């Protein structure tokens, strides 16, 4: 017999949590089932580098307390894969053969690591950097490994390299693009980072990738496309993630790179919602439909989906690419568009750089409004810049002050300042 639920959620990470927590704030009695391939309770993938570097213990990887599902009255079907969706019967088929019915369904299936075809991928000690299984395997390998190659110089690759370096391994990053972190930062920050990693003993090779993986049963080295050979006893593949869209395809949903959703996180089919790394929504700053594979975006998407699934009406009013990162002691925040100085088009970039102090700040303006920014070194109160960007405030009158390390609401001209703050009930009595 098929068991039916008011809400079925596929996935067990940020998006699912956002959805469940929103659902339960509206609907205390509706039945919820959560289906997840992994057997462990909800943990934060974003904490993997912290754990592997030894900064936190395993318990802290868990995002919510052990009694989370019980307390929120969620039937957690862990260790079960959702393999098919019958949108006619409104049923999800699980890998064990069981079927569960749904009234509203959320796809929060996340992403899978991108792995380009290479010779020798089947060897031991080759890892991806995404889930708990990876973490436990890498942890085991760390006990004997001494030299690691990390393929991919993006956020995950660099964080992985830093963690491995902190564990005493000789780490070597290989990046296909001409510089590290190219999608989210500009040239000066890439240079800052490359210098920083070199200083810490992590080699970075750009404009290159792995052609062949060497070794017997286990990896013992890689050959790059330019013929360079690097010996290693561990290889981490960190080239990013691709949306896991299979279930969406089976359900006949409209798909581009990710499962297409509107501002209410509804897919092209009634009662089917999607959020997080598997979904493709709207980037308000870029003005295009885009996958934004970031933890906060997934949680927020789940929250909006949850509100609508419970019969409310809530829209995603604003989202864009935003990242907070740190590598060794360098803090880095990026938001919105990353417009290169080489080809700014209609944009105006204003920036200040101090290589010695590892300080950099850049604002990309469009008609006097912030369309993107990068902060390196000093990141305090970055959210105020995001607020200026979100509200499309004209900053041209005080653009110079944006570089002030103590920039705050005091730095913003009076009219705009009270416009930004007053509606948010900050003021008790003013203008009286």
């Amino acid at each position, binding site marked *: 017999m098929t068991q039916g639920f008011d809400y079925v959620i596929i996935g067990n990470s940020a998006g699912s949590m956002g959805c469940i927590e929103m659902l339960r704030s509206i609907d205390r009695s509706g039945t919820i089932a959560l289906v997840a391939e992994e057997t462990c309770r909800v943990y934060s993938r974003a904490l993997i580098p912290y754990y592997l570097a030894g*900064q936190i213990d395993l318990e802290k990887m868990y995002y*919510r307390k052990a009694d989370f599902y019980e307390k929120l009255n969620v039937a957690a079907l862990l260790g079960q894969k959702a393999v098919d969706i019958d949108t006619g019967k409104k049923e999800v088929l699980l890998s064990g053969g069981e079927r569960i019915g749904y009234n509203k369904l959320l796809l929060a299936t996340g992403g899978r690591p991108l792995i380009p075809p290479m010779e020798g991928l089947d060897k031991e000690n080759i890892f991806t950097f995404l889930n708990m299984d990876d973490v436990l395997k890498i942890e085991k390998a760390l006990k004997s490994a001494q030299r690691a190659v990390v393929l991919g110089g993006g956020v995950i690759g660099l964080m992985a390299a830093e963690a491995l370096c902190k564990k005493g391994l000789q780490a070597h990053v290989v990046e296909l693009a001409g510089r590290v972190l190219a999608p989210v930062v500009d040239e000066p920050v890439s240079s800052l980072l490359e210098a920083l990693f070199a200083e810490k003993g992590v080699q970075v090779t750009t404009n290159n990738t792995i052609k062949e993986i060497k070794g017997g049963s286990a990896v013992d080295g890689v050959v790059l496309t330019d013929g360079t050979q690097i010996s290693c006893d561990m290889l981490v593949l960190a080239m990013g993630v691709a949306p896991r869209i299979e279930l969406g395809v089976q359900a006949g949903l409209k798909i581009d790179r990710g499962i297409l959703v509107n501002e209410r996180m509804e897919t092209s089919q009634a009662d089917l919602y999607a959020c997080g790394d598997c979904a493709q929504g709207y980037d308000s700053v870029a003005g295009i439909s885009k996958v934004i594979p970031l*933890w906060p975006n997934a949680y927020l998407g789940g929250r909006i989906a949850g509100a609508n699934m419970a019969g409310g009406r809530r829209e995603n009013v604003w989202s864009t690419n935003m990242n907070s990162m740190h590598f060794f002691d360098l803090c880095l*925040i990026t938001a919105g568009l990353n417009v290169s100085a080489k080809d700014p088009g209609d944009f105006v970039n204003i920036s200040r750089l101090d290589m010695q102090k590892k300080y950099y700040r850049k604002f990309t303006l469009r008609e006097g409004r912030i369309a993107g920014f990068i902060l390196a070194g000093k990141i305090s*109160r970055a959210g105020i810049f995001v607020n200026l960007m979100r509200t499309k405030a004209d900053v041209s009158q005080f653009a110079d002050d944006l570089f002030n390390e103590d920039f705050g609401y005091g730095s913003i001209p009076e009219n705009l300042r009270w416009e930004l703050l007053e509606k948010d009930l900050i003021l008790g009595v003013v203008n009286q």
Partner: protein
Amino acid sequence: MGKILIKPEVCIGCHLCEIWCVVAHSRTKDILKAFLLEKPAALSRVIVEESLPVTFALQCRHCSEPECVFACISGALYKDTVSGRVIHDSEKCVGCYSCVLVCPYGGIIIDQENKKVIKCDLCEGFEKPYCVSHCPNGALVYTNQEEGGGNK
């Protein structure tokens, strides 16, 4: 839920709210010891914004839709459904600064020493927040209102 409101028109920018915030979050709760003996010294969670002659104090708004909570990757930040406070569990914080990135008020403070964040907790355990009870001009007001402010 409780909320701190400000009256910029009577704020004189004396920064005493910052001083007493440090005291409230010190180990000894003694103003001299807090500043002279405690190492590392506690940090203020309230910031006095200055654009002379206008000054006003700003701290976490305990938003009804707290962006910091939604962005927190470790589960350290949460909204207490009973008190309405946005609470930060320092034990769980890893210092990723995602909250610093999304807080529209700049109300989350970086604790450089511990590589974590700190924020206003509305002086849990005290009758009134210290910044409010020690403001000589009544420029900070603690209210208990039904509808919490938000940023939407």
